[in-house]
């Protein structure tokens, strides 16, 4: 089998950037940070997807869409799309553009955890204080994506999808969703 004629890793990345998250259709899977290792070899393309949540129901649809787009890009290539937990996806993987898109569409982006997905030495996941740390992070007043006010309250740590929490703004009196830090 020949090398992918005229197809480079950049082409593959552009194709992936056009795949949107079905639950947040304004956010590409690249900006969401769920694209892991991408390998473009002779006659083959291999892509790893890192699920936001283990039980994310959108994952199968995302995987099928990625296979479809890569097949359009390189019809003769062997396409491999695999789900991986190494490294674990963390909300820190959402790009600056992804955060901008979230705010534009009325979502608060997740607070940054800065633990790089490593669990050993993370202040976020230190065993005894894990839940206390979460509480502090979440209850810290998340800026309202509508009016920018910090006078907001956490309403529910669980929202309409696994990755969302619900807040309420005391200034503009609007509820809003936050992409959970995880």
């Amino acid at each position, binding site marked *: 089998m020949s090398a992918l004629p005229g197809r480079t890793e950049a082409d593959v990345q552009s194709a992936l950037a056009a795949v949107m998250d079905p639950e947040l259709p304004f956010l590409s899977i690249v900006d969401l940070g769920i694209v892991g290792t991408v390998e473009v070899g002779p006659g083959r393309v291999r892509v790893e997807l890192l699920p936001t949540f*283990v039980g994310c129901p959108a994952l199968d649809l995302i995987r099928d869409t990625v296979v479809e787009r890569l097949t359009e890009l390189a019809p003769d290539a062997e396409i491999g799309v695999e789900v991986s937990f190494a490294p674990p996806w963390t909300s820190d993987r959402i790009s600056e553009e992804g955060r901008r898109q979230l705010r534009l569409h009325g979502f608060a982006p997740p607070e940054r955890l800065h633990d790089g997905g490593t669990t050993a030495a993370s202040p976020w996941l230190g065993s005894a204080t*894990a839940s206390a740390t979460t509480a502090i992070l979440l209850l810290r007043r998340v800026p309202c994506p509508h009016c920018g006010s910090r006078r907001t309250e956490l309403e529910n740590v669980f929202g309409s999808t696994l990755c969302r929490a619900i807040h309420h703004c005391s200034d503009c009196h609007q509820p809003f969703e936050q992409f959970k830090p995880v």
Partner: protein
Amino acid sequence: MTGRSSQDDQVDLSADPDPIAHAGSSQASGADESPTSPADPTADPVTAAALAELLLALADDDLVIGFSDSEWTGIAPILEEDVAMSSLAQDEIGHARAIYELLAALVGSDADRLAYDRPPEAYRHARLLDHARGDWAMTIARRYLFDTAKTVRLEALLGSSDRPLAELVAKIRREEVYHLLHVETWLDRLARTPGEARTRLLAALAVLEPDASSVLAPLAVEPILRGSGILSASSASLLNAWHARVGPTFARLDLPPLPKTVPDPAHARCEHGEPFRWLWGEFTSVRRLDPAATW
């Protein structure tokens, strides 16, 4: 799922209520097509069979608590909790699915067959999860005992020599933080509210007490799991860690201390009662209508 390539020789689970008995043989016969690295502990058939028992216990725990949680969808005491319990159910069933997929790769099956095609007596969830859902206090009390034990167990599995399991656990643990935050808040709230809330919580804890630590009961294959590094800590040390975590919370809330008895491994994950048989009937009902249906 990545990690371990699935075996070619599929085990027919529909005719076999005990899938894990095949783990060793399947692994050995598939070794030629998918060579395992020297560091992979499942290259040894006895170790592979022991790992299969561990994975089945872990996955069954998450599946059963997940379906119990889902019973609150539509009828939780307040709307926020309706959303929360539904979300928790989705998380737990998602964890179960990912663990069944690791098991499926090991024994040559698929996650749905492992989750739904067994008779009730073949499930290996802890006795704590065998109780009926009960009222809200029962749900919170059981979730608290389960989530704290699950967290202690996950921490020990982070260092497992089985890489696919260690990687998955690192991811699951990040989500469990939210489960703990939720259930600790509710335990606190029920325990500190005099009258019916506290009375019901105390009644629930009294019912659950004999099975409180069953999630951390040792498996019969624990020596093999310890020897191969799949378990980096003994169940005795996990029990100590769990008591060290739960004890101060119970003392602060003036709840009766949990007994330090070691759970009986022979009964901790078998002998399921009527409430589980009912739940099993519910969660397998659609699958049993047409096991060959494509979704």
